């Protein structure tokens, strides 16, 4: 039985359901828009945001991702669908990869719309390499979705899942936040030469973090989604 076919079916199913309900992407986008407006008016319209541009972006994206991650297993719990999925002969890590890819796609769609709006509303620009900026966002998104999908699986079976996920997700994702802020700040500020070394280091740490948690999820998911 093809693992790729199973992962693809889970991703397709999540995308079709989201296209019908639009509850995840729309709520995430409205939330990120609200944060932008709060930053814009909260700090004053004449503030130069460029020294802390990365921090502002990732505070917004990290909390936005929580909204999506909290919802990602709700469809599975509805009408016992998670039990139906677990009854099928699918390898448990394939469920993880399917859900993780779906979360990655939804978060990325929100960011594709939100980043240009951010740049316009906060009067920011990307002075460094745009491909490096995109790479930093992709690496950070992978980390957020890997950790988030793993932890939302744990929290879905608890009574206080809406509260539990932020409590366990935010501390564990703090290395992602630090590296994402460091890399995007450096790239948006257009740093070069020796000052670019911390950006490269942060992106290497992000990549290592992503790989490490992908392996952890692959090894532990059977246990995590079980009893």
């Amino acid at each position, binding site marked *: *039985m*093809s693992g790729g*076919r*199973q992962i*693809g*079916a889970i991703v*397709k*199913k999540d995308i*079709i*359901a989201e296209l*019908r*309900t639009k509850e995840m992407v729309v709520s995430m986008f409205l939330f990120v828009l609200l944060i932008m407006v709060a930053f814009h008016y909260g700090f004053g319209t004449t503030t130069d945001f460029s020294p802390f541009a990365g921090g502002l972006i990732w505070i917004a994206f990290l909390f936005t991702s929580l909204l999506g991650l909290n919802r990602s297993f709700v*469809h599975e719990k*509805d*009408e*016992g*669908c998670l*039990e*139906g*999925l*677990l*009854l*099928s*002969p*699918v*390898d448990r890590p394939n469920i993880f990869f399917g859900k993780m890819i779906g979360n990655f796609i939804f978060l990325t769609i929100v960011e594709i719309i939100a980043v240009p709006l951010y740049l316009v509303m906060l009067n920011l620009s990307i002075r460094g390499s745009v491909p490096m900026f995109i790479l930093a966002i992709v690496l950070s998104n992978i980390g957020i979705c890997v950790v988030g999908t793993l932890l939302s699986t744990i929290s879905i079976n608890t009574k206080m899942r809406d509260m539990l996920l932020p409590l366990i997700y935010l501390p564990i994702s703090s290395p992602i936040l630090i590296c994402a802020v460091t890399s995007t700040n450096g790239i948006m500020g257009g740093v070069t030469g020796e000052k670019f070394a911390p950006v490269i280091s942060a992106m290497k740490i992000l990549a290592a973090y992503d790989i490490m948690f992908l392996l952890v999820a692959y090894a532990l998911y059977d246990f995590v989604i*079980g*009893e």
Partner: protein
Amino acid sequence: MSPEVEVKNLSKVFGKRKVLDDISFELERGGFLSLFGPNGAGKTTLIKIISTLIAPSSGEVRLSGMDPTKNSAAIRAKIGLISHSPLLYLDLSAEENLHFYGAMYGVENVDARIDELLDQVELGHRRYDLVRTFSKGMTQRLAIARALLHKPSVLFLDEPHTGLDPHAVDILESLIDSIRKNHTFIMITHNIDRGISLCSKAMILYNGQIVFYQDKNELDIDKFKSIYHQRVRGDS
């Protein structure tokens, strides 16, 4: 011939509570076990253990001679579950739900199989409609199609008649009749007449223990009813 389902000295403990206590039974290929018992007796836990959803605390389970701890995926490919929860995605259409489960089970010629099943459960005309728009009976009929999609050899029926209209009950029972010879069934039910008429073996679970277990051809119906009324209904 080895039994299709074999359970030996099975126990399950959740925290300090013993939900199943030293359960042993065998069910031959093509057999039909009707499982009775009050809520909390351990019936659903027993099915979940046999279907590999949860692990036993002690004891052994074999399905087609396979050990769930070593062959869980192979066992899951052989089983189907019809329960009072439909296990269907409300925001997908009937056809999309069956396509999704077809991919999960690796069903070959899935389109032809979906056509066949939707005709059998009389939902061909609603194949493109969202499950969210279905009545309870229609949803349950689609759940029957989902459970049979991969042609399982063992079917678990967990109170399958709950919430069904008489038409859906007829469809379910005619489907059971049509596949009866080639399949093994374990059905949880509170309906004595229906359970006894369908079964080849009857069992009553009470507080995680078997308090009654007999072949239908040896069934002492008075003893069965006496135990059922004492333990399940609490009659003195």
